[in-house]
């Protein structure tokens, strides 16, 4: 499965373009990272990809078919969305919260069946959150909520997972749990695209990256060619050092603002 953006631009009504002429492709089995400074339009891009907002010009293609020509239901059965884990949480149990993800598949007046519940329990087991099923979302930590939201998106059995800053506001350990989950999902054949504040996460986890600058233009390509000291300086205004650690893992350390 591939999702491709072609010359895609977006502007809010009566505003300057937020995103300009973006071209990139997300493929099954790959993790793609969207990077960029605050206000560069990362969340807007995610909303455009999901079809919550419409490209002002350009288009996105799902397996070569224009997304506007695909019925919303069908599109959303193949592409799933994980929102930022902020704002008011409902005091639903994790099991009920994850079950909400199957709602689109069942009839209007139906309630989830015992089979659906069994699926959710298996899914939670595979994500390592089986112990949370009876816990209320209002009583969870940020990391736990994030994993529940990922599970909810996976409950509809998508081929592409779109995540909006899944590892923001999480501690080191929980960031790793979320990132490892993304890696594993890609290894199992899913296409994963996530936006992030952390260039290091793109370097360690993503095959491809899309780096947005404040004008809404983007550099897309293999992560090693996109996330470079040069590009980080240009888009973030930060002098950074990228180094390779043992085992070929690359990391990045911000050193100082440019021009200091």
């Amino acid at each position, binding site marked *: 499965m591939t999702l491709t953006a072609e010359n895609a631009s977006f502007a809010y009504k009566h505003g300057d373009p937020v995103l300009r002429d973006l071209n990139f492709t997300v493929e099954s089995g790959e993790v793609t990272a969207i990077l960029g400074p605050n206000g560069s339009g990362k969340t807007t891009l995610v909303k455009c990809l999901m079809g919550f907002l419409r490209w002002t010009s350009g288009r996105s293609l799902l397996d070569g078919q224009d997304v506007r020509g695909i019925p919303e239901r069908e599109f959303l059965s193949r592409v799933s969305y994980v929102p930022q884990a902020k704002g008011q949480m409902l*005091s*639903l149990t994790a099991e009920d919260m994850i079950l909400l993800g199957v709602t689109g598949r069942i009839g209007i007046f139906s309630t*989830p069946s015992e089979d659906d519940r069994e699926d959710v329990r298996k899914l939670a087991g595979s994500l390592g959150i089986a112990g949370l099923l009876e816990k209320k979302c209002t009583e969870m930590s940020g990391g736990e909520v994030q994993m529940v939201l990922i599970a909810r998106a996976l409950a509809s059995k998508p081929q592409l997972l779109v995540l909006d800053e899944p590892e923001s506001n999480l501690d080191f350990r929980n960031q790793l749990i979320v990132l490892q989950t993304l890696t594993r999902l890609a290894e199992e054949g899913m296409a994963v695209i996530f936006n992030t504040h952390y260039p290091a996460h793109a370097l360690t986890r993503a095959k491809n990256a899309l780096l947005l600058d404040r004008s809404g233009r983007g550099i897309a390509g293999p992560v090693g060619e996109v996330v470079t000291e040069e590009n980080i300086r240009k888009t973030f205004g930060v002098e950074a050092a990228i180094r390779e650690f043992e085992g070929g893992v690359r990391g990045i350390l911000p050193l100082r603002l440019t021009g200091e």
Partner: protein
Amino acid sequence: MRAKRRTVLWRVLLPLFPLVCALAALCIGRMGVTPADLWKSLAGHLTGGELPAGLVELTLWRVRLPRILLAMLTGAGLSASGCAFQSLFANPLATPDTLGVASGASFGAALGILIGLPLVGVEGMAMLCGTAAVLLTALAGRGRGGLSGVVLAGIMMGSLFNALVSLVKFTADTETELPAITYWLMGSLSAANWPELALGAPPILVGLAVLLLLRWRLNLLPLTDDEAKAAGVNIRALRIVTILAATLCTASCVSMCGQVGWVGLLIPHICRMRFGSNALRLLPASVFLGAGFLVIVDTVARSVSPSEIPISILTAMVGAPFFIFLMRRSEGWQL
């Protein structure tokens, strides 16, 4: 396993609760009817055997039963619409009262009474103005002020429509219409009879049925539009249907028995504490508990003193302390 068994127990107990309340209420009141009379009458009707005295028969089936049914419907309707509004506005304080729906419906109904419409017309007017009120509240409170925004907008809308009700009262005939409107506004089920019930019950039943059928999907309402859409649901349509169904319940309750306050707040929150916030369980529980609760309150209202106490006075006396208890509870308000 224990949790499972408890769930089964509640599934039996909850539907029984309004039934037991109704049977007890049939035997309580100024006209003495003993449980033996009730049994005799029930058995008589079922087997065609001997019936109790005519006055007892009349009291039981012509006076008390319609009134009890009206109380059950009103309690169920207001509780269910309370649940629905709380989900709809993602706000634990949203109820028919706080959103101005009840006031809007009251204005419509009062206007209907003033111009002498039949009950169907009064109900239609109540529905129309109730819907207008909730839409205005939603528009005014949108986006700003978080949790309190929509409730503040609702209070404003409520006071606007209450002022309009006063205007209606002001122009009403002081001898006949004014007492009728005033007493009806305070909430009373005393006018219940079979013909009125036959007209007023269907809208409540329809609203209840729609909400109950959609109960799983009500869980999606508090999510953001994007999240709900991502679950593959037409969230706009769901919002509209829920608003209409909940307003239909409220408006029909109001046009039959006036403003019965607090039920839509009290009952859903008691049920939330016990059964959690999943509408799958919350909504049916609220319907049963609300039905039984209002039968109890109405029975007290009509039997503790020689003249009837308006029912909203009693619900407020229970509701206000409970409101404060909820507010001061360690977990605070929860949805």
